[in-house]
């Protein structure tokens, strides 16, 4: 059996989770829609194109917002932004976490202690407060929220990777590598890293989901992506008033539902991946 065989096995096990398959298809469609937003959006999301707060109609499938912008277009662009923020924050935090975790576990000693204490420190900050303060200090905006979320999410990954490295390091094949005079760099990146990548991958899906939620929360509070750029969070921001909540459902229900569906399906996919990638099952 070659590497392809391994992939087939993983795919087969993944396919057993019906919910995850549905979620994955949903996610893929959403990602395609988000990428194609400039092509398929009926209107410019930032331009007034109809009356104020009009309910859904044939011209505006999801109605218009309070200043007359097309909600469907805004929603598509918002999803683009939210998915991008989630993905970018996940990549950043995973990279930081993997590198620090590898170093911490492999070098050990003082380096390990220092890295782990920093990890504890970042973990012990009240999360939302830190993000709010950071968002206030740095100018709120797309990139600052990506960096902030990337920075607060790495400790989990770092701990996970460190734990894995510690257990893999004691394996005989690592000892055999050292005995065979293989360079340290090779051992760390070519022997240890591939064996710890599966759980990191699973963890990253969770970080992705959480990042989308955090972005929504921050933007809702006005500290995230700044208007007029649409994000799922700042669309919800429009629903702060009771009138909107009670009588203008098209302003907030689609964005809310979208967030819930995105996060749930990412989590389902993550769960199925965990089962599929775990070699012990």
């Amino acid at each position, binding site marked *: 059996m070659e590497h392809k065989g391994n992939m087939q096995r993983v795919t087969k096990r993944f396919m057993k989770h019906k919910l995850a398959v549905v979620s994955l298809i949903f996610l893929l469609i959403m990602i395609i829609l988000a990428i194609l937003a400039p092509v398929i959006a009926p209107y410019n999301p930032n331009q007034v194109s109809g009356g104020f707060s009009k309910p859904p109609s044939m011209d505006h499938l999801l109605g218009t917002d309070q200043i007359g912008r097309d909600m469907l277009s805004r929603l598509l662009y918002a999803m683009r932004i939210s998915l991008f923020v989630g993905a970018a924050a996940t990549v950043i935090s995973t990279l930081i976490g993997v590198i620090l975790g590898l170093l911490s576990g492999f070098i050990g000693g003082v380096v390990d202690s220092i890295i782990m204490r920093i990890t504890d420190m970042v973990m012990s900050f009240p999360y939302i407060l830190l993000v709010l303060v950071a968002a206030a200090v740095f100018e709120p905006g797309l990139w600052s929220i990506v960096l902030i979320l990337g920075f607060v999410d790495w400790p989990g990954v770092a701990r996970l990777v460190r734990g894995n490295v510690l257990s893999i390091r004691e394996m*005989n094949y690592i000892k055999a590598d050292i005995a065979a005079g293989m360079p340290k760099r090779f051992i760390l990146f070519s022997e240890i890293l591939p064996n710890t990548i599966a759980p990191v991958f699973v963890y990253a899906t969770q970080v992705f989901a959480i990042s989308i939620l955090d972005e929504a929360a921050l933007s809702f509070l006005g500290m995230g992506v700044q208007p007029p750029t649409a994000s799922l969070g700042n669309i919800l921001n429009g629903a702060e008033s009771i009138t909107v909540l009670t009588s203008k459902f098209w302003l907030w229900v689609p964005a809310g539902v979208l967030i819930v569906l995105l996060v749930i399906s990412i989590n389902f996919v993550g769960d199925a991946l965990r089962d599929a990638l775990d070699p012990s099952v």
Partner: protein
Amino acid sequence: MPLLQVKDLEVAFEKEHEELVFVDKVNFHVDEGEILCIVGESGCGKSVTALSIMGLLGQQGRVKSGEVLFNGRDLLKLKEKELDQIRGNEIAMVFQDVMNCLNPSFTVGNQMAEAIRIHLGYDKKKTKEHAIQLLEKVGLPDAKAVMKKYPHMLSGGMRQRVMIAMALICRPKLLIADEPTTALDVTIQLQIMKLLLELRDEYHMSILLITHDIGVVAEEADRVVVMYAGQCVEETDVHSLFKKPAHPYTEALLQSVPTIYGDPARKLKSIPGTVPENYQELEGCRFADRCSYATKECYTKQEYHEVEPGHLVRCWKGLLNNDKQ
């Protein structure tokens, strides 16, 4: 000059801020082309000795003093980078536990190719040829198919053969085999042992074989070092070890092995008691409490001395025991 000479090697482990000496002034040498067996029961420091030669002690262990001369260079004084030049190239090691000796994430071929590329710098085609050739050399049928397999698809014996093939990549001068057959069943043990003997002749390498199986010693060894409780207690060639063991421990060890020859009515002797805990603190002979010949002289310090040319023993009685029989 012997290929490998271990002089007064002392290895200590730290346990709850206390330093325990597990290998106490061990001396032996391996000549070119010979097989030296280190034999002794579990926990007597055989593996620790081997690991400290390779610089693989890990974080708790520490070489306190002594020298490990390989071709005249003291391995203990080398930096990691310099040691990496010798490890794999001139000294290779085969481990006891075959279950996790290969990286589960890669195929056998992949792992061998990496090692060949790093050590020999061959191109892709030559690397593959070399790998297949080595796998065939260690007696794996259909080497090409084995190359494409993941470690979990191989049996224990096959894995050990792959490990040996990987050890042979650079034609090492010395192969350290740390209980290479312990995890395998008896028929495979025999095959692996035969393979080692063949490879020794073909590659003209020396083998430092660590085992607790006296049968393996009889089959394989040219010379034998018997270890007990962190010390060498006897060193001699394999014939005199079996004919006239000088140390009571060696004698007891031999008597505790069943044989298919000889008197079927002979009762198998066992050695009473266990290896003393905290044997580091014992002043005299560490075997004295279990020894049937013990007298009060045994509780004073025992010198490791030569009783015949090339026959060393750590027992004040020397060869006296044999005269009694």
